[in-house]
């Protein structure tokens, strides 16, 4: 099977950090507030957080998910690799969850990685994602499945993995 590459252009500048890339392309970093005690999450745990099925961090802080605008590469990657959903499925999931009371808070939406970073910086229970190259010292990058964002085995890529 021929690999499908998402070639959407980036609408904003990088934060200047050296991009954490693997042979497959740039990685998607999951960021939390510096005060958050969490350092590592499994992909499964991350999925429960992203789908609003988990409401609080171990320190008691409410979890606030911050997403980027629809259509952006980072959002597509998160939906694909973390939620395993399409945009429509994701929207429907939250609508249904809020209606049934299974989901407590719908995600916040920001249009730039800088906005995401600042949001996470300001909200102790926030979690979000940016390109690895957009990370700075104001936020904390957590490991996924024990892998750092610059590890080759890191599971979250900006582009879809090639499939045979």
């Amino acid at each position, binding site marked *: 099977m021929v690999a499908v590459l998402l070639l959407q252009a980036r609408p904003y500048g990088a934060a200047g950090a050296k991009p954490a890339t693997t042979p497959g392309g740039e990685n998607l970093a999951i960021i939390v507030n510096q005060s958050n005690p969490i350092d590592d999450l499994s992909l499964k745990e991350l999925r429960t957080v992203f789908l609003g099925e988990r409401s609080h961090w171990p320190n008691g802080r*409410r979890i*606030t998910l*911050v997403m980027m605008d629809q259509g952006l590469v980072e959002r597509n990657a998160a939906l694909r690799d973390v939620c395993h959903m399409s945009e429509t499925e994701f929207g429907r999931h939250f609508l249904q969850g809020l209606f049934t009371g299974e989901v*407590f*808070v719908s995600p*916040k*939406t*920001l*249009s*730039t990685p800088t*906005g995401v970073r*600042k*949001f996470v910086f*300001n*909200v*102790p*229970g*926030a979690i979000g994602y940016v390109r690895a190259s957009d990370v700075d010292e104001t936020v904390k990058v957590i490991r996924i499945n024990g892998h750092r964002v610059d590890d080759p085995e890191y599971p979250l890529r900006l582009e879809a993995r090639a499939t045979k």
Partner: protein
Amino acid sequence: MSQVVNDERAAQGSWGGHLAKSVSGLVARHSSSLLLFMVLCVVVGVGAFMIGDLHTASVQVEKMYAGSVQGLRRIGELQYEAQETRRSTLYALTTNDSNLQVEYADQSREADKLVADGIAQYLAEERAPREIEVGKRLQRDWAAYLKVRDEVLASILEGSPRSIKEAVDLDLSGGVPSFDRVRQDLEEVKRLYDEQATEQRTLVDASSRRSVIRLMGVLVFTLMFASASVWAIQRSKMQNAMRLAKLQMDFVASVSHELRTPLAVISASAQNIADGVVDERKQLAKYGSVIRHHSRQLTELVNQILLFASTHEGRNRYVVRPLQVQEVIGAVLKNTRELAEEAGFAVEEHVDAKLPPVMGDFSAVSQCLQNLVVNAVKYGGTNPKIAIRAFGGNGEAGEKEVHISVEDHGIGIDSTELEQIFEPFYRSPVVTAAQIHGTGLGLPLAKSIAEAMHGRISVVSKVGVGSRFTLHLPAGKVEQTETPEAQRVGQS
């Protein structure tokens, strides 16, 4: 007299006496210039004082500005930024747009950083204990408010209805009181600056008042001093003019008297001869001798006046050349022999051997010495002895000179008159009372000639003992030339 005369060189070498004499002479001659110089000094002093006072006031105002005014401005800025911190936080409540809320959060954080920096700067400066206490309290209260602000911001950004309600509750319960404490602290700092400014303004006011009073005093003093100086200068000039007028009147009277006596004798003698009262040859010869004597006296008098006038107006042109002192003295003695013999005076002459030539105009130097000899005869008193001596010496700057002195043992000159005798038309009241005739021009003329020859005349005298006048002339020039001063005098 002998002591005074013998000590002439010693007296000339005595710094104290010579200096005092020079200073008193200078003061007398240049009183107006000295007064003007003093006025100038006072004006410069006043100017320096005023500049100093203005500088002090400027430093105080600058200190007040840097300390209180600038401090108040900074506190104003801190108050604004603190409000901005809170305002931006609350603005975030007014929107559901997360992007905008993040912007407001950002603005709030930028403003709070400025406040924190301002407080740190305030504490870093040199402060009184009370100010430091208030500053540290402000720092604590600001940190406490920021802690609440961070929670409020986080709740606002979370964006759920529950978190918004929590944000509002938290702000009301914690944010408002903690921000009030910050506001009170800032007011306290402002009040301290106000007190400081008031204190400094009082100091500046007092300093300004002192400066104004001082300046007024100094200006009044300067004005009075300047007025007194101008008055003194005018008075001095008027007195000089009056003195000169009196001297000229005395001169006219004296000259008239000097002219009238020989003219009366000549006229009476001529009348007697014309009337045939005198017919014997012997008597005629006697009358002729009288007429010749008085005619010569008249001629001498007129010559003296004309010579002084020409010297005074600078019309003389001297030919300066090396002169042998012996020759000059010989000519002087020849011209004055008859006068001395008639008066019964013996003239003793002593010229040092190997004396260098002097630089001067022959007839002018002769005239100068002749005047000194005539004066020695005229004021020689009852001891009819005159001594003319010539010897080598050094000038005031150490240059080689020849000194020619004329010494008598007559009535002498009072020390208070030693300066005046060289002024034109001056006649001592003593000699006027003693009916000794003269014009008051002999010594001024001698002095003018000496100075035109680059020389000078000094005098040592004691009342009732005698006088010694010494002509100092530069020695040693070989080639014939015209002195620049002589040229200047001649051309002016």
